[in-house]
């Protein structure tokens, strides 16, 4: 039972990071391969504050978010201002992710590669649930506001957006800061769930997993990436019995998604009961072709 609750906590934490990244990648159309760095910054900031300075947990989480957001501005300003396109921006974030990890390995306050052991266990399942529901709700609000629509417009057609008076740099920057803050929060929760962090936890493997969840879950969808990251974490756990085949099945799922749902599980749509109604025959009225995001 303890084990299942643990897996659920990890899923909840990763949902926060994934939802944040989905704003940046799925809705604004920019790829990041270094998002684990924002989790790392949030994790270390929050952990150092509670560990060395006895700062209350909530303030430490907030500080982690702010620190991630601040660092995202430092990386975002030169790259987004220069309007680095697609692949180039992804490479820049890849380098950024590695740089952050190396810095953490060499600072004295982070205790280098040894990491920080014995962080207090504040992140319980209810805490995770409250935060992940809050973040999902706020992200939905974000996307349904002018900020979200501007982000989608920039993803759909940058030239037309600019000719409609939308400031590309500002829109991309807001999305980056938002997703970095979500990453920072997830990192802070993660540190106080695991009670131990070290730089090696935040490698490009984690970044790739987050980006894969957004793409496999579906660009321009919020529920899709939530489903995908839950699968990515739950499936290997379920398959622990078939130890040798775990990663094979994991890979198989990705391949199947690519073949059967090339635009992701929920690409450009949201999971809703409307869709269930559509699947159940006789109640299909009124859904056809409506409401894409």
């Amino acid at each position, binding site marked *: 039972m303890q084990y299942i609750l643990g897996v659920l906590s990890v899923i909840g934490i990763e949902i926060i990071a994934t939802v944040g990244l989905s704003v940046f990648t799925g809705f604004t159309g920019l790829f990041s391969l270094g998002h684990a760095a924002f989790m790392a910054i949030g994790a270390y900031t929050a952990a150092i504050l509670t560990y060395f300075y006895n700062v209350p947990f909530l303030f430490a989480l907030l500080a982690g978010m702010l620190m991630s957001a601040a660092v995202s501005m430092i990386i975002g300003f030169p790259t987004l201002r220069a309007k680095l396109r697609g692949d180039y921006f992804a490479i820049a974030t890849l380098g950024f992710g590695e740089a952050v990890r190396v810095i953490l390995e060499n600072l004295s306050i982070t205790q280098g590669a040894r990491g920080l052991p014995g962080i207090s266990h504040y992140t319980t399942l209810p805490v995770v649930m409250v935060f992940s529901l809050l973040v999902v709700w*706020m992200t939905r*609000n*974000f996307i*349904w*506001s*002018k*900020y979200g*629509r*501007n982000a*989608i*417009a920039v993803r*759909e*057609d940058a*030239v*037309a*957006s*600019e*000719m*409609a*008076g*939308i*400031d590309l740099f500002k829109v991309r920057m*807001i999305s980056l800061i938002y997703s970095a803050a979500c990453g920072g929060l997830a990192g802070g929760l993660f540190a106080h769930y695991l009670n131990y962090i070290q730089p090696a936890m935040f490698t490009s493997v984690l970044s790739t997993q987050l980006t894969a969840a957004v793409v496999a879950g579906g660009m*321009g969808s919020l529920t899709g990436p939530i489903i995908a990251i839950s699968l990515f974490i739950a499936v290997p756990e379920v398959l622990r019995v078939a130890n040798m085949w775990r990663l094979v099945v994991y890979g198989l799922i990705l391949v199947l998604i690519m073949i059967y749902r090339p635009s992701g599980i929920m690409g*450009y749509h949201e999971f809703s009961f409307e869709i269930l109604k559509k699947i159940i025959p006789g109640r299909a009225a009124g859904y056809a*072709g*409506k*409401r*894409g*995001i």
Partner: protein
Amino acid sequence: MALLELKGVTKRFGGIVAVKDISFALEQNEIVGLIGPNGAGKTTIFNLITGVYKVTGGKIFFDGKDITDLDPVSIVKCGIARTFQNIRLFNKLSVIENIRTVLFREADYNMVEALFRSPKVTKIEKQLVEKAMEYLKVVELEEYANYRADSLPYGLQRKLEIARALALKPRLLLLDEPAAGMNPEESLMLVDLIRKVKERYNLTIILIEHHMDVVMELCPRIIVINFGEMLIDGTKEEVQSDPRVLKAYLGEEYTYVKG
């Protein structure tokens, strides 16, 4: 005073002179046709006015203000909107969302209110839908409001682009081949629509178009350019009878046939 004035505008791409020393002025409420053979530099002139390209030489004034070095976003704010030769809609958004998106300037709420979806946000968003619907009614697209933009037939996508440009509340509207790909019947309806929105929103319009019936129907004044240079700027009667225009469009031999 002229609403838009180009003074000796030149654009060079490396060794190629795309637009050379173009000067003209537009009065308030005028509608001018900008024609010329393919590759003459018509769209480049639009891109220079809207700030997509920076001019190599010359000045552009809008409403007395020098807009030559402004960025595209500031130029939109001055009151210039455009449509595109190859339609550029926000494809995966619905028709009404395409309009609602560009109304963002009228959405007076901040990020915190947006994140917590305060009642104010809900109210403003609802008003935006109503405002967007008004623009859809003008171009008669209200019944398609919830369709995805890329699911519309070509002609309707053109109309939606015009509606989106109108939603920016421009004083000057630049239409880049709005009738491209339309049949004669659709072109006629487009002519009516352009007349209607010009009256209703008190617009000044520059129209790039290859359908001569559309241009002759709408524009009392026509500017012809060829190889980036101004050929003639005159009334449509002058343009229709000018031998240089015929030559530019039909080639050297035409004059021989005629003569």
